[in-house]
Structure formats: structure tokens, C-alpha cells
């Protein structure tokens, strides 16, 4: 299990989540349009969820249907 960042982050990139992550698994370069969670490192603590100002972060089991593709989007980012 891991948490997943979804569409509302696009164009927001608030980065509050980055500050609260205990294992530093949330990344995104300046040129990226959103932030991403590394599912291999995420420990599922949920600290990022309430830090997000736009409710973009979901547990992978609870990602809304229309944003399911973001599960792969997050994982793929770290395979580059």
C-alpha cells in the first residue's frame, strides 16, 4: 500500500506534504506540473493527506475511479 497524489495537485504543487513526510518520499522537479509519491518508499502513515490544501492525496485503495491512472503516474515517475 501507498498513498497517491492525484489531479488536484496539477498546477498547485503546494509542497506542504513534502515537509511532513517522515521518509522523504514525495518528489517533483521545478519543471514537473505536480508532485509524486514513491510507492516503494511510502510507509503509509497518512501524514501528507491532511497537509494537502487541495485534497489531492488518497490511499491507493481509495483513489476515485476517474483518477485511478494516477496510481501508475506516481509509480512511473520513479522508474525513469
Amino acid at each position, binding site marked *: 500500500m501507498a498513498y497517491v497524489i492525484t489531479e488536484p495537485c496539477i498546477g498547485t504543487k503546494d509542497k506542504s506534504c513534502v*515537509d511532513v513526510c*517522515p*521518509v522523504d518520499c514525495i518528489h517533483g522537479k521545478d519543471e514537473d506540473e505536480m508532485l509524486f509519491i514513491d510507492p516503494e518508499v511510502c510507509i503509509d*502513515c497518512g*501524514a501528507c493527506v*491532511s497537509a494537502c490544501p487541495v*485534497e489531492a492525496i488518497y490511499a491507493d*485503495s481509495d483513489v476515485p475511479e*476517474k483518477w485511478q491512472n494516477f496510481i501508475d503516474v506516481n509509480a512511473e515517475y520513479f522508474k525513469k
Partner: protein
Amino acid sequence: MLSALVAGAGPAGSTLALLLARAGKSVCLYDRSTFPRNKACGEYLSAGSVRLLHEIGVGAQLAAHARPVSGVRLHGHGVHATIDFPQPGWSLPRCLLDQTLLRAAREAGASVVRARVEDCSDRAADASLTVRFPDGSIAAAQSTVIIGADGMHSIVARKCGLVADRAHTGRFALGGHYGGFRKLDGYIDMFVDGDTYVAINPLTDTAANVMLVVGHEELAHNAQRVDAFAEERARALAGDLLARASAESKRIAIGPLSYRARRLRSRHVLLVGDAAAFVDPFTGQGVYLAMRCAQIAAECITSGDLRAYEARARREIAARERAAKRVGAFVHTPVLARAAAPMLRRGAWIFSPLVRRVVGAA
């Protein structure tokens, strides 16, 4: 308009929905998860929690699945001490507890909806809760009472301005089930090293809940290999007891283990359970407080006096926090632990009132 909307279907939310439904209120319970779900939890229920479960009316059906816990053995700082609880507690799989309370709420007439709470606003005449359904659509519902039972990362608390800035550091808990023990008895074993500890709570003769609590720095330092780190750290602390056992489930984390809402109530909104205050898992008080605050909230809501909730719930929380702090100080401070050990061995007389408070028997 429904009488009450409850955000979060853990022990706090389900208990409250159950009590309100029984009192004839129309209530809707929202949770993002499908049940049964796993949660990081020590899976130990104090005698006080067991008493509450019986009061609520689910004790008898849970008793068949529970295993009595007679006390705690503390190991650390060169000290081994056994504390016998004045009354036994229970070890009980958390998913079973959550599922049973939720089912009871549903049977009492509460409606249960799978949706994630995304916003909550408190207004002059009522409060509004915005939720997102699994298909991604959004809806808002209004009521004169909305309860945030959505955990230590509560969205309701944040949106209603009931929480100050959260701590980003502190301790984190990493828990999981282990199997393959030789023969577990009715005691929780707790191995302490400074602020770090591992607690082994037997669920059956051969399986146990193993929970490691470590500081943020240590976790961050091992960020790229958290699972291996937690495994090694637990084994190093627990020694022989864990030697034959192996992990049977993925580790689940929660943290930071320090959170407290600034206020527990705004005009039409109440916070219960971890959303109100998170107590050190060392004391096994989280579920007790969740259910006790839910009881108090139900009384305040049915009597129409929401104002009374803040002070009553705070008293309950403060008593648990004080006791947790005192026990924590003894356990985590080597000098005090050594000083206390002989007294603990002599039947824990000096600790009795304290232990009674901590285990919720008082």
C-alpha cells in the same frame, strides 16, 4: 436534514453513530475505506475499554474472539519488571473491533456511506460536510451537528480551524502481525530503549501484534529501507522472543504520535477519538478514549447541549494524558526505571492507583 453527520467509521465514529441511532436520531456515517480494513494499532484493549464495549452492547459477541491480557512485562535499562493489571484487558484484532462496531451502528439504523470527507464548514445555522464518492463525484450535506471522527490527521478539525499547526516530527509506530512464536502467554512484552520500544501483544498462542515505536530521525535515516530497518530494530530489542517468529502481514505505519486539537468544538462541530487527541499508544488508551468521548458526545447531542462537550471530553483526555506521561517517564528514563523496578517486583503496590488509571480500570 439528518440529525447528525459523522466523518470517520473507526471506533469513535461507529460508537457515536450507534448511540445516536439508538437514541432515535437520524445519522449518516462516512468513511473512505471499505471494511474490514487494517490499521496501525497495538490491538490491546484495557479493562476500561472492555467495560465500555459491554456497556455499548457488543462485548459479548467480541469476547469469543478476544484473548485475556493479564499484564505487561517491561524490559529495558537492565530492568525486568512485571506489572499485573488489576483487571485483565483483551487483545483483539483491530479489524474485528472496527467491523463489529460498524455493523452494530448499521443495525441500530445509522446509514453508512463510502466517501471521503474533503471539507467541513461551520456556519450560523448549521454546518456543511463535503464528501467525495468512489466515482470521484462530490456532494455536500448539512446538519446542525457534524462530528469529526476522522483520526489524528482529521480533515474536519483542520477545515474548522480546531487544530493549530501539527507537529512534523516526533515518534512513529510501525506495526504488523507475526506468527511462529513457540508458546505465548497472557502478558504483553515491552522492550524499551530510551524513547524507542517494541511491544509484543499475543493474539493467539503462536501469533502476536508486534509494534515498533521509533523517533522521526531514526526513521528518516532509514527511509530507503524502512521495512528491513523495522525488522532489525524489533529483533535487536526483543531478542529471543522474536527469534522464531516471522512477519505475516505488511507493516503499517502511523505518526507522528503527537497530536491534539486546540478546541474540541465549534458551533455545530465536535471532535471525537484521535481527531480530538492522540495519546501515546504505550498506554493502550486510544480506543478507550475514542469510545468514552463518543459516549459523552452522544449524551451532549441528545440533550441538545453541545457546549458541555468540550469540558467533559477534555477532563477525560487530560486524565489519560497525565497517567501516560507518568508511566512514560518511568519507563523511558533509565534512572527512574531502575529505582522503580524493585517496587514493581514487590507486587506493583506503589503503581497500583497509577496502573489502574492507565489500564482504564479506575
